């Protein structure tokens, strides 16, 4: 098929320039490879486009995908008809989810890499060990922390695994509600600690320290205190002279040659032209939903079921971190204000309930953390009257007298929970949208219930007059965390990628986002995803591009 343009081939293409794509762009271009990066969103500039405007950022999709252009569909079991639903949306622009995130970057635990070894077969689930261990990732976790200027205090989390270096930036000061959390934890004998944040608290690599306004989570940061790939890794990649960024460019297909290797991509440029870009290596980093979708859309005679899908596993075992919580309402006649609109969105967390404890009746666990209920105008809590005198009273009673303790649900992998191509709904380009099928495993429900109740107990210990639990009913996609749709592993019959996130089928295709995670972990995944993308990109530049092959040994 003739294309409008066919630019010169490059060494590598990176599709999607969020947390992991931005990392890949930096590592590869700094290693001397010629790289082209695509993002279907625009390239915004923090100082020109970002602010603390609730209406713009919370309600009017400034960072988020327009559901008319980029719909998704959801069904809760395979027998139901999927409906258009904004499931797990992530910001679509250069920098991706790091444009909106609160920036909490805790490390995964040793147990996250060996869930099957620890628990065996969990009926109805598809537990798997990772082909790497915590020890393999640790050096790269440290690299990202130091490049990003992560704030934290080594040792404050008493369950923290080995770290080769402390943090480059001091921990964020506790918010008022964070202080309540620490006090309650002390009362209950729980280890509370300042969750590491991708926010610099002292001047770092030319960036000024964090302003304690709190208009960060869900907002674009007009300063550069919050680390994101838009203001760190992407400019560093561009500065090498080896990286060309093509925003507003929608990659619709990965092309394959007669030998079954990827030759490049076809994309639609901002003027609506179809363009073919060839490369030696194609790297996907669109997030687990969209990477799977692009692989499934890239059909060819060699790969009639989608690229790199000889195992039939692309899109399967999709996991998400539904965010659950308990809200605490405090008594303004007794308590001091919690100042929920100041400081960071979350303040204080605990890994006390992370590892399996048989007495709880479920396996696994999650990171918990104290947070704001929301920002002033969008303040919400379940059951709050929404207008009239009742609303006025609720707002004036609870404005600054509410907080919540949330959890990152450690969603168990289930093969039938998956991403595939919707048979009827198309996006603005006429291409099939991602259809998500997800039914929680009983362990998810049990884990969520137990932890929400525990969080309510902590809120009561903090002095909450009333607590409101929010349990798991169904997966709503109340999270940007997506994993598992192109698992990495050693067996090509059961997994999509090897330990370097390299397709078992197509040796020059890599998927470096959360799609590669065999299990979801119970912790915010972005730090681990970025570290893993760094690790794999280093492999591409230092080993694969030089014609060699290496394999890890895990004990």
């Amino acid at each position, binding site marked *: 098929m003739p294309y409008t343009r066919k630019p010169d081939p490059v060494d590598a293409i990176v599709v999607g320039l969020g947390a992991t794509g931005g990392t890949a762009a930096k590592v590869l271009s700094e290693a001397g490879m010629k790289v082209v990066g695509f993002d279907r*969103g625009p390239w915004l500039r923090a100082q020109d486009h970002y602010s603390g405007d*609730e*209406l*713009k950022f919370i*309600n*009017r*999709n*400034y960072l988020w995908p*327009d559901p*008319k252009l980029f719909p998704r569909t959801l069904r809760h079991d395979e027998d139901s008809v999927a409906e258009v639903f904004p499931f797990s949306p992530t910001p679509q622009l250069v920098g991706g989810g790091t444009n909106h995130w609160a920036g909490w970057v805790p490390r995964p635990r*040793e147990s996250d890499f060996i869930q099957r070894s*620890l*628990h065996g*077969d*969990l*009926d*109805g689930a598809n537990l798997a060990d990772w082909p790497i261990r915590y020890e393999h990732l640790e050096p790269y976790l440290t690299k990202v922390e130091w490049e990003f200027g992560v704030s934290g205090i080594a040792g404050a*989390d008493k369950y*923290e695994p080995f*770290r080769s270096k402390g943090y480059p930036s001091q921990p964020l*000061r506790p*918010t*008022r509600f964070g*202080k309540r959390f*620490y006090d309650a934890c*002390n009362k209950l004998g729980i280890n*509370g*600690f300042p969750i590491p944040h991708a926010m610099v608290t002292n001047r770092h690599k030319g960036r000024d320290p*964090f*302003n*304690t*306004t709190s*208009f960060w989570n869900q907002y674009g940061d007009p300063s550069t205190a919050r680390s994101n790939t838009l203001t760190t890794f992407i400019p560093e990649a561009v500065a090498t002279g080896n990286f060309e960024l093509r925003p507003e460019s929608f990659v619709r297909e990965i092309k394959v040659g007669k030998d079954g290797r990827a030759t490049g991509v076809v994309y639609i440029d*901002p003027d*609506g032209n179809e363009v073919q870009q060839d490369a030696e290596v194609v790297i996907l980093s669109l997030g687990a939903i969209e990477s799977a979708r692009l692989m499934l859309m890239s059909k060819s005679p060699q790969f009639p079921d989608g690229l790199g899908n000889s195992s039939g596993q692309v899109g399967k075992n999709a996991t998400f971190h539904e965010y659950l919580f308990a809200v605490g309402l405090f008594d303004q006649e007794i308590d001091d*204000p*919690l*100042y929920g*609109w*100041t*400081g960071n969105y979350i303040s204080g967390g605990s890994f006390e309930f992370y590892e399996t404890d*048989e007495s709880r009746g*479920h*396996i696994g666990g999650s990171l918990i953390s104290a947070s704001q209920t929301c920002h*002033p*105008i969008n303040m919400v809590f379940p059951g709050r009257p929404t*207008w*009239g*005198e009742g*609303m*006025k009273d609720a707002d*004036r009673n609870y*404005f*600054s007298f509410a907080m919540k303790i949330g959890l990152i649900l450690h969603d168990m992998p*289930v093969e039938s929970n998956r991403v595939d191509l919707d048979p009827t709904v198309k996006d*603005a*380009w006429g291409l099939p949208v991602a259809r998500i099928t997800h039914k929680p*495993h*009983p*362990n998810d429900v049990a884990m969520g219930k137990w932890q929400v109740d525990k969080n309510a107990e902590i809120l009561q210990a903090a002095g909450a007059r009333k607590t409101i639990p929010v349990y798991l009913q169904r997966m709503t996609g109340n999270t940007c965390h997506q994993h598992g749709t192109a698992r990495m592993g050693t067996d090509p019959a059961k997994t999509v990628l090897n330990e370097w996130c390299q397709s078992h089928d197509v040796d020059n295709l890599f998927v470096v986002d959360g799609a590669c995670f065999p299990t979801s972990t119970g912790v915010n995944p972005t730090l681990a995803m970025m570290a893993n993308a760094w690790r794999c990109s280093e492999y591409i530049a230092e080993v694969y591009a030089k014609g060699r092959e290496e394999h890890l040994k895990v004990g």
Partner: protein
Amino acid sequence: MVDLKVSFAGSKPPLGGWLPAVSLTDRQAAILNAAADELIPGGDGFPAPSEVDVLSFVTRYVTPSGQEPKWFPFLGEDDFKARLDKLGEGFVRASSTQRVAVLGGLERDEPEFFGHLRDVVYYAYYSRPEVVHAMNRVLRAARDYRTSPLPYGYSDVMADWDDELLGRVRGSYQRTADVRRVDVPAHLGKAGV
């Protein structure tokens, strides 16, 4: 036929709403003010919405006639005006109790429209400087709330670290190989999806 001209251009709402704003008749403005005053009652040191010009905000965010109201607050000019007209002059003249009853009926019968109206009035009201000043003046918990973040943010109302708290904790490490196997609870082992 695939429209390859589709791109991000035009896919974002205009910042600050549309200018010029949608214009309302005097009667429509009075109806909107009356509704806003019931949605967020004034008093106790707070102004009524009608006293702080919620109208100019709302009319900037109502999508002008001829365009699809695809962005928050999802209100299109023609439909919005027709609904105000339907509430009618009687709504303006009615007592507060009667207006609340009418709005309650609207919430029950047309929840989508009611929600959009309520939300945009909420934004309009709490964006007014007079309201922020009232919050500062009247609410103990909001005395420090500001209309925009300042260079040093809210440092003055943040807490300090408890050095003792952090001094007590120490990190630990166990090799992956030393992580203990834990049995799956029996009831989960038998459970299906």
